[in-house]
């Protein structure tokens, strides 16, 4: 009964979304009072409905109701409870319900934290959001219903959740990403409403800023966790693969970063109005496009767990309807698009313009690289081409340099025009000293210097010094610093740390393929690596070979455990890497093949500063979240 309850409630949600999506706009255009509905109450009620629907799916997983097809395909009787819970969003159908839930949560948040005097404007934002939710609910019910039953004879055990997804980071990563993606709905709905109501740029930009920041915060955290998962779970030691689906998350992230920077300008100066509207539309479009690319199966990818052309068509329809619709309003309607104020090349405005230009061109290049194989094939009648990591790395590098250099000076700039440039010499001197210090530390730690890491290390120092110096120069008290500068300092410093991590890990890493029998040892960098022991072990739904390997650098000995697991329901093998984390480096070992008896091959790696990448991402996420809260406090 519970799945049917969830199903009926999802249908109710769909119908109410249709009402919420049309009534407020009808009220606006006809002026009739009967169409007015209490939007706040309705949004909360919708949220309750979708939550109950989601929880009934969770319940079906927890009680092993394998008569529900989705549960049968993605869970198993022996799966630990925590993973049964997380399996709810382990595949396409459940993800969609969670996605709708996330959109609904953002709408409730927006309505409750935006105390606009203009009720009609809020109603319009609500209405547009409801239309999008309606489309998603429709999509879920017609192409991907998670509540479908297998009757009359349900399977006994269930097929199991993909073993590589049975992992903490990977259970948290999708919801965070969904919250990030779906959060971009709010800036989109605000942008469309702003055009419809010809809202003043300064005003709507203020409404939009916090939600863009929250979205960006969640996207950062989601992408960061995904990267961390890939690092330890795929057994490869890489942290970014330029996989189409990674790109599909990276592009909206870039655009959301561009958008909230552009919104700062729009809110403070009343300019860039049209640009901010376009960015809001395209940020949302790319988040939908990402879904389309993943679900339609037109790009093959590790994430492609549910391929179905019909679904692809449906999502493309949703994408086309909303984006073409909003762009038509953009191209036809005469709306308020801000003031035309002059600003000098040395102004903050110009800095933001440059930042946006770089971010957007980078986003377009990455998007282009991701879908280029499709276009090429369509144009050349079936000839194929693949675009891999080298393309993306070549593209990224100049943009990263440009953005980094800009980020270092950006915080010094003033609106209209900057008058004093004495910061340049201090910035240069201090960042060069920090750069030299880092290089020295790296030399002491790793006994080596790599010239190709110098550019990124300098960039990191430049950004860090630029961020910290400005905060110091403002001479704020402790409390004022926390209130005014903490968020931006955290986020920009996070970027410096991330850049440093990327620079060091991509040039200082060591790796080696080895073959060892128990008690054998081998020299690797400054470490002596020894194969201590191997044993069989049993997990809740797998059995494994567990090898203990010790790393001895002359001072400390660390024991790393790496495993080859065989999951019993599916027979799938996974490799669990053994990782020892220190502040400056990771020791990493993953188990390869059993060659004979107890002789195994291993891949050993030393990954300096890799943690700094995720630490940086964490700070960026935290910084943007705090910035979002700060903006909300201004609105309330």
């Amino acid at each position, binding site marked *: 009964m519970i799945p049917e309850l969830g199903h009926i409630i999802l249908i109710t949600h769909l119908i109410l979304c249709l009402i919420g999506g049309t009534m407020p706009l009808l009220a606006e255009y006809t002026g009739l009072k009967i169409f007015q509905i209490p939007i706040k109450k309705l949004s909360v009620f919708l949220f309750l409905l979708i939550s109950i629907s989601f929880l009934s799916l969770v319940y079906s997983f927890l009680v092993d109701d394998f008569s529900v097809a989705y549960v049968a395909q993605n869970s198993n009787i022996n799966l630990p409870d925590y993973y049964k819970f997380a399996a709810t969003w382990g595949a396409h159908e459940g993800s969609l319900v969670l996605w709708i839930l996330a959109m609904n949560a953002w709408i409730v948040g927006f309505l409750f934290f935006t105390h606009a005097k203009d009720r009609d404007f809020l109603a319009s934002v609500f209405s547009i959001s409801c239309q999008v939710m309606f489309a998603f609910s429709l999509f879920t019910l017609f192409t991907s219903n998670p509540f479908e039953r297998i009757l009359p004879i349900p399977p006994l055990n269930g097929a199991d959740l993909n073993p590589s997804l049975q992992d903490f980071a990977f259970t948290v990563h999708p919801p965070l990403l969904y919250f990030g993606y779906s959060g971009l709905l709010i800036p989109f709905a605000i942008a469309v409403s702003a055009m419809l109501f010809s809202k003043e740029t300064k005003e709507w930009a203020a409404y939009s800023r916090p939600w863009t920041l929250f979205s960006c915060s969640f996207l950062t955290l989601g992408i960061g966790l995904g990267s961390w998962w890939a690092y330890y779970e795929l057994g490869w030691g890489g942290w970014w693969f330029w996989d189409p689906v990674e790109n599909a998350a990276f592009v909206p992230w870039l655009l959301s970063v561009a958008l909230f920077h552009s919104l700062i300008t729009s809110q403070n100066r009343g300019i860039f109005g049209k640009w901010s509207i376009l960015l809001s539309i395209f940020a949302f479009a790319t988040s939908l496009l990402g879904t389309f690319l993943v679900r339609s199966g037109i790009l093959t990818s590790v994430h492609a767990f549910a391929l179905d052309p019909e679904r692809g068509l449906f999502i493309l329809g949703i994408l086309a309807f909303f984006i073409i619709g909003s762009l038509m309003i953009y191209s036809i309607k005469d709306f308020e698009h801000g003031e035309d104020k002059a600003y000098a090349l040395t102004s903050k405005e110009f800095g933001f313009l440059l930042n946006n230009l770089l971010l957007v061109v980078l986003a377009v290049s990455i998007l282009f690289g991701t879908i280029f194989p499709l276009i090429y094939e*369509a144009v050349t009648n079936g000839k*194929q081409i693949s675009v891999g990591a080298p393309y993306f790395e070549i593209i990224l590098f100049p943009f990263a340099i440009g953005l980094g250099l800009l980020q270092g000076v950006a915080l010094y700039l003033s609106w209209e025009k900057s008058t004093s440039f004495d910061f340049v010499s201090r910035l240069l001197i201090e960042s060069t000293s920090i750069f030299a210090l880092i290089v020295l530390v790296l030399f002491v730690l790793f006994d080596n210097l790599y010239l190709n890491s110098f550019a990124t290390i300098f960039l990191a120092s430049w950004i860090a010094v630029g961020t910290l110096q400005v905060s110091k120069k403002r001479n704020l008290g402790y409390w004022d610093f926390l209130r005014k500068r903490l968020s931006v300092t955290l986020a920009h410093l996070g970027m410096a740390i991330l850049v440093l991590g990327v620079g060091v890990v991509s040039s200082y890493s060591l790796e080696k393929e080895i073959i060892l029998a128990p008690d054998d040892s081998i020299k690797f960098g400054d470490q002596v690596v020894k194969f201590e022991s191997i044993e069989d072990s049993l997990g809740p739904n797998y059995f494994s070979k567990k090898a203990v390997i010790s790393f001895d650098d002359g001072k400390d000995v660390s024991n790393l455990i790496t495993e080859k697991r065989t999951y019993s329901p599916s027979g799938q093998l996974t490799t669990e890497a053994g990782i020892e984390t220190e502040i400056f480096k990771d020791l990493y070992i993953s188990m390869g093949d059993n060659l004979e008896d107890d002789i195994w091959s291993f891949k050993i790696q030393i990954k300096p500063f890799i943690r700094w990448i995720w630490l940086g991402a964490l700070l960026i996420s935290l910084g943007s979240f705090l910035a979002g809260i700060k903006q909300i406090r201004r609105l309330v």
Partner: protein
Amino acid sequence: MKKIIDVLPLAIFIGLVVVLFSFLSEKDDQLETVLIDSSFPEFSLKALSDDSRILSKDDISDLPALINVWATWCIACRVEHPFLMKLKEESILKIYGLNYKDDKNKALELLKRDGNPFEFSIYDFEGRLAIDLGVYGAPETFFIDKRGVIRERHVGVIDEKVWETKFAKYLDE
């Protein structure tokens, strides 16, 4: 006054949707029919493990078999790798690899580390055989029956479910 430039975003976006749509609708027939029921194309390429060994169609001799297109840059291939290993270990049928636009050393290293499910891998650096096969990307898997005819094709990760629904039926013929 609206200017022509205001229509530009709309025009670009419509163009994008048209391209995606045409690909989506084309994909089905193009992917499914081009090579289904025709015999495996002729080729002459080096073996991955041995530069001096030249492979041709006749080397794919132990039929029925799967041809699996893989590469080290393709993460999805790593996901399906255990399943291929399982097919090999349970001796269900032979699998031949088509190593696609890959770095030879990395490819060999991967097979050494994760196991080698293939009888041999054809080293197709320029994607010549892949073009003949109409390979869209990696991973892709083809089923070849006893007579050397391609019967089925799967784009994307092959797992238990795909095997059961798409391929297993041809094995019993």
